[in-house]
């Protein structure tokens, strides 16, 4: 008897809980959709890289950036004065360091962001902030997600960020300049044979760049061919024996930037590779290779010059 009663009570509690949850979610749905329908006259809608439609005011002058590449883009299109918050990783240009810090890319402070009253928060998916994005949205703060997988994607990010903060013209000029430089690299390395290379993100454990990393596209444009270009994922952990068996003719070491000097030696598995034996191990500032921002084109030029010095004489 007692058991049956308990069971029934349980069932009823569950039912009420269910109804409660439904009502709450219905309420929160109506609340979050109301502003976008109401303010259609002085707001605009744009789609971000995650395919989300977001509503923004016509004039945006309070922006928070949660990734160093996005901070670089904001400054490069001349929107530095609209940046009210960025992260401790945002160290370029120098002016970015004096912007109020909201934490690092992986652990931003929700409270501080809300206190800064941004009209939009710029997020890079590399930082995996899906839950955080939802929290911001529930506080009616628009979140714009970028997710470039190649240099075209970086150009798109620049154009979009320019449009968001009202610097579309400057962004257009910047992208045109960057395109010109990328095209110059293209034509310089056109006749040269592609160099099979290994991109070593870290030696221990061995990480590399996979199919989804934008640097894989940079390598291709620089006249190289990443031996891990078809490996699924952006930054896969890679088998040491496969790296040895690949016998790369060159190794790219992203190092010396904000990642420090930790990655300045080739992994043991690559120590007998043709790359190491012929001294074709190239250290390139990691900030130019891992940040999908304007300086990615610097990385492209540096890589192309390292791989094909003959093409740039």
């Amino acid at each position, binding site marked *: 008897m007692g058991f049956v009663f308990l069971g029934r009570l349980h069932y009823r509690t569950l039912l009420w809980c269910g109804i409660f949850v439904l009502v709450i979610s219905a309420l929160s749905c109506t609340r979050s959709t109301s502003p976008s329908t109401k303010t259609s006259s002085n707001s605009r809608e744009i789609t971000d890289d995650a395919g989300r439609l977001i509503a923004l005011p016509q004039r945006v002058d309070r922006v928070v950036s949660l990734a160093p590449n996005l901070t670089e883009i904001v400054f490069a299109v001349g929107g530095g004065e609209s940046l009210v918050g960025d992260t401790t990783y945002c160290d370029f240009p120098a002016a970015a360091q004096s912007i109020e810090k909201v934490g690092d890319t992986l652990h931003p402070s929700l409270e501080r962001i809300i206190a800064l009253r941004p009209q939009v928060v710029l997020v890079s998916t590399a930082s995996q902030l899906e839950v955080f994005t939802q929290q911001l949205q529930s506080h009616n703060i628009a979140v714009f997600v970028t997710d470039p997988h190649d240099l075209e994607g970086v150009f798109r990010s620049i154009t979009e960020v320019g449009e968001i903060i009202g610097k579309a013209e400057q962004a257009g000029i910047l992208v045109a300049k960057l395109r010109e430089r990328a095209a110059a690299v293209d034509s310089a390395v056109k006749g040269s044979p592609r160099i099979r290379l290994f991109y070593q993100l*870290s030696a221990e*454990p061995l990480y590399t760049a996979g199919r989804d990393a934008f640097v894989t596209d940079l390598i291709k444009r620089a006249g190289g061919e990443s031996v891990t270009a078809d490996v699924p994922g952006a930054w896969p952990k890679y*088998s*040491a024996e496969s790296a040895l*068996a690949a016998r790369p003719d060159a190794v790219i070491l992203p190092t010396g930037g904000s990642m*420090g000097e*930790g990655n300045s030696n080739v992994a043991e598995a690559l120590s*007998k590779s043709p790359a190491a034996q012929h001294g074709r191990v190239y250290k390139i500032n990691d900030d130019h290779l891992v940040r999908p921002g304007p300086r990615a084109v610097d990385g492209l030029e540096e890589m192309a010059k390292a791989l094909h010095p003959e093409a740039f004489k």
Partner: protein
Amino acid sequence: MTVTVSDTSTAIRLRENRVTLQKTVTACLGLICALGVVVVIAALLGSEKLPVGDTLCSLVSFGTRQCGLTNDQFDILFQIRLPRIFLAAAVGGSLATAGASYQALLRNPLAEPYLLGVSNGAAVGTMLALLFFGKMEWSRPLMAFVGALIATFAVYRLARGKVGASPERLILAGVIVTTFLSSVIVFVTTLMDATRIRSFTFWLLGDLSGATKALLPLAIAISIGGALVLTFNARSLNLLMLGERDAFDLGVEVSRVRTVVFVVASLLVGSSVAASGSVGYVGLVVPHLARLSLGSDNRISIPAAALTGALFVIVADTVARTIIAPRELPVGAITALIGAPLFIYLLKRA
């Protein structure tokens, strides 16, 4: 009269000892043969395919002949694959030996390096060594050992109430120390730069790919030496399973045995955590497996657990490095995937 009684009892004990010795030797020889077979199979498998005949030929010659292998294939086999297999064996053997002796000493079937917080103590030690003495490789196992030892004694102190250490108190103390040290680990990782966090989270799950050659001989020496020392203390551990007071009355130097087990087990856990992070479930499942199949005499179950642990981690790591090749999984994920269902099965059977 009394003389003849003690004579016959001594004779019985001697015969018992001989039977146990025989059983131990048979079990160990069987397991060593199995270990040999598994090492060879594991050496044939990997993200790169090696020709079977040539590989076997080269393995049989202990690397003195290259047979038909190219230079690269030879390097893959002897510079990358085999060191990693030996490290897997050392780590598995160490963790299983530590688990088996904790379970005997503390008379608790759940006593295990990970659940007692010893692995986390070693992990904190390794992280601090990496942060402050990054250049000195030997500082890692040393600090891991110190961390493991501190965690062990902390748990033991916490578990000892006014009425002595009860099994429940012990596990509770272990859980408290484990969670406390986990938050220390989280705190230290947030202090690190983003690029190092990824490799740390991988390492924390148990990863054998970062095997530096400098630590391999140390890990192997400690695993073999530790298993031998604990096997020689197995008779005292058998008596300790009756309870500390009874063991003391039977002539066991309880505090000495306890210190030996704590120090040796901390060495075992420290060296394996420094080399591979926290590989879970090995210290829990393997000793149970050994006891269920060979009986609870520690003179048999400790060496058997050591060898079975080596087998278990070699198999798990072979899966980890081949299943999504050329990418890799952390071996800890595989040991947990195999270990958890295996433990449930053993629990239902026991």
